[in-house]
């Protein structure tokens, strides 16, 4: 949804500290906060040229701090330096494969990073904190009836990434509950949009091959169904959540799920990309890999609608059109496609 005038006035002049600012959601969220007049401090860990560029279009309209939220001294310095109204904690180790090969780093970032951040927020009187969680955690919520095993929860337990996020939510809830902190927990599934340069992921990968005139190859039949949310709808969820959490107790530490609320098969998703890129001739090549494909339920966004008045404002068609336009810009013109407004466009390669 368009955050509208209330969001603009709510965020105006608010001091906001964003971790994970160089990620997919972070790039769009920081842009949007700046547009709404917020004073943003963005935490940037690795100085990769791409992530630098994604913030560069904002120039001196944001303040960036280099480092990690696992560094308690750094958090002390940032949160001690100026009163912070809202922390939006997007930073995480989100790659499932990395979590499998390096569980300790994943727990350091996702679990320990969260307790460091919340402890600093607690001691420095930050008004509220929003944390990015995942719908995977929902599977461990349900109270197993006596005599029944919590089957979904059991399946999650073999994945370090999922367990790290469960721990993150548990830790965050304990801080909120014990120290009466204002805490928002936003659970998302798959988010897509311009700026996601992980080409091993389905949507960026399929868009890139389509724009190159190549057939996209699936290893599987592509039949599993997923819920995909467009990134600007995720941004509006954060803005809306922060606006309401500031004065509402009912949202505090109550996880809310966000998604499109409908599913599409991976094969049809790629066909949608082909359609909007005018390359319907590039029918994807499917594979027969017997790796079990897991279909997801459509996200239940009832709470998001009821508690926040939030709805996705972009259909899959609209979101994909915008995403393809962003990547076309990125590949063909060499510029990123964030809303630029008054800021000058930085060239892709500054050398």
């Amino acid at each position, binding site marked *: 949804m368009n955050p509208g005038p209330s969001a603009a006035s709510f965020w105006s002049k608010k001091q906001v500290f964003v971790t994970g600012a160089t990620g997919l959601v972070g790039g769009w969220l920081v842009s949007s906060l700046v547009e709404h007049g917020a004073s943003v401090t963005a935490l940037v860990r690795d100085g990769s040229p791409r992530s630098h560029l994604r913030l560069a279009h904002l120039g001196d309209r944001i303040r960036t701090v280099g480092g990690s939220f696992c560094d*308690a001294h750094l958090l002390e310095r940032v949160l001690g330096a100026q009163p912070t109204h809202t922390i939006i904690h997007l930073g995480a180790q989100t790659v499932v494969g990395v979590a*499998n090969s390096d*569980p*300790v780093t994943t*727990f*350091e970032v996702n*679990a*320990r990073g969260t*307790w*460091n951040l919340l*402890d600093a927020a607690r001691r420095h009187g930050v008004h509220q904190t929003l944390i990015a969680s995942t719908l995977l955690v929902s599977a*461990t*919520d*349900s*109270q*197993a009836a*006596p*005599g*029944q*095993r*919590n089957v979904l*929860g059991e399946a999650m*337990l*073999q*994945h*370090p990434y999922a*367990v790290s996020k*469960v*721990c993150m939510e*548990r*830790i965050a*809830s*304990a*801080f909120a*509950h*014990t120290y009466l902190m204002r805490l928002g927990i936003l659970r998302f599934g798959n988010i897509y949009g311009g700026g996601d340069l992980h080409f091993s992921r389905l949507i960026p990968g399929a868009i890139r091959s389509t724009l190159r005139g190549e057939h996209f190859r699936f290893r599987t039949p592509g039949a599993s169904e997923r819920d995909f949310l467009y990134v600007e709808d995720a941004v509006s969820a954060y803005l809306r959540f922060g606006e309401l959490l500031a004065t509402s107790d009912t949202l505090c530490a109550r996880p809310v799920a966000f998604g499109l609320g409908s599913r599409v098969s991976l094969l049809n998703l790629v066909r949608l990309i082909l359609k909007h890129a005018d390359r319907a001739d590039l029918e994807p090549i499917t594979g027969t890999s017997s790796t079990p494909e897991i279909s997801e339920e459509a996200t239940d966004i009832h709470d998001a609608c009821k508690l926040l008045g939030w709805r996705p404002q972009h259909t899959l068609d609209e979101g994909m059109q915008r995403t393809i336009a962003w990547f076309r810009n990125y590949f063909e013109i060499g510029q990123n496609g964030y809303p630029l407004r008054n800021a000058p466009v930085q060239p892709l390669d500054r050398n």
Partner: protein
Amino acid sequence: MSETNSFWKDRSVLVTGGTGLLGSWLAPTLAKRGANVVLLVRDGAPRSLLVRDGWLNQLASVHGSLTDEGLLRRTMAEYSVQTVFHLGAQTLVGVAKADPVSTLETNTKGTWMLLEAARQTGVQQVLVASSDKAYGESANLPYREDHPLIGQFPYEVSKSCADLISQMYARAYKLQVGIVRCGNLFGGGDLNYSRLIPGAIRATLHGENFKIRSDGKFIRDFLYVEDAVEAYLCLAEHLAANPAMAGEAFNFGLGLKLTMLDLVDKILAIMGRPDLQPIVENIANNEIREQYMDSTKAHERLGWSPLYGMDEGLRRTVAWYRNHLQNTESSN
């Protein structure tokens, strides 16, 4: 079973938290059964039972913290550790609330560091001390092992997370992990007199009425420390015989549903001082009211049942404090 088999003979065993209540009983038991015990000791604990009884000097010990990755790996490798009993934790609820970060560092990070070191050095099995506190508050009692782990306070959640991470290491990395969820342990050697049982016994030995800070109606599950020792050994032995059990958690409790007042009555009866009725102060009632476990799984799958139980456990505990307080107070 443990007394007669040779499972522990010459087995290299690392015990973290060795100077705590449980460690002080577990380490000597392991040594008596032939294990080569090495203790991870962080702070000097001159009052620990392990020190008083002279065991600390007879067992190998390494000095340092659970969050010292290099130390854990070195210890496991150098001592060719086969079994780890991971008992080390920050266990005081009040400390956890005052300083959540250090509690999470020790209890949660300490657990993943230990499991990772075990994975990297090829330790055969790790027994992790979780807790009934890991379950969090629930209307669905008694807790069964499949109850979700949803602690709401820093200490509880540090245990919920450690428990989940332990389950994950078993499933994702095929580490032979056994998870032990005991109720509140009691027994000789626990010198934390702010706890109910040590506090009530000491007050009674002094001829004083014990003061209960709550309304006395809280229910907790208790287990005598020697019964807990057998629970850990029993699970380790079963885990070795049946590795498919890896990653499973087991409740070990008495499930008696005694209120604190009931328990103090029992102590007074055992000590022959029913006249010293407790004083109910009714000023601290903000903790979880009822926690107790269903230990059917341990009975059925492990054949475990408490050898001492509540009454005999209390008798042994009272005897220990009687002796201990006589010695310490007469020497002053």
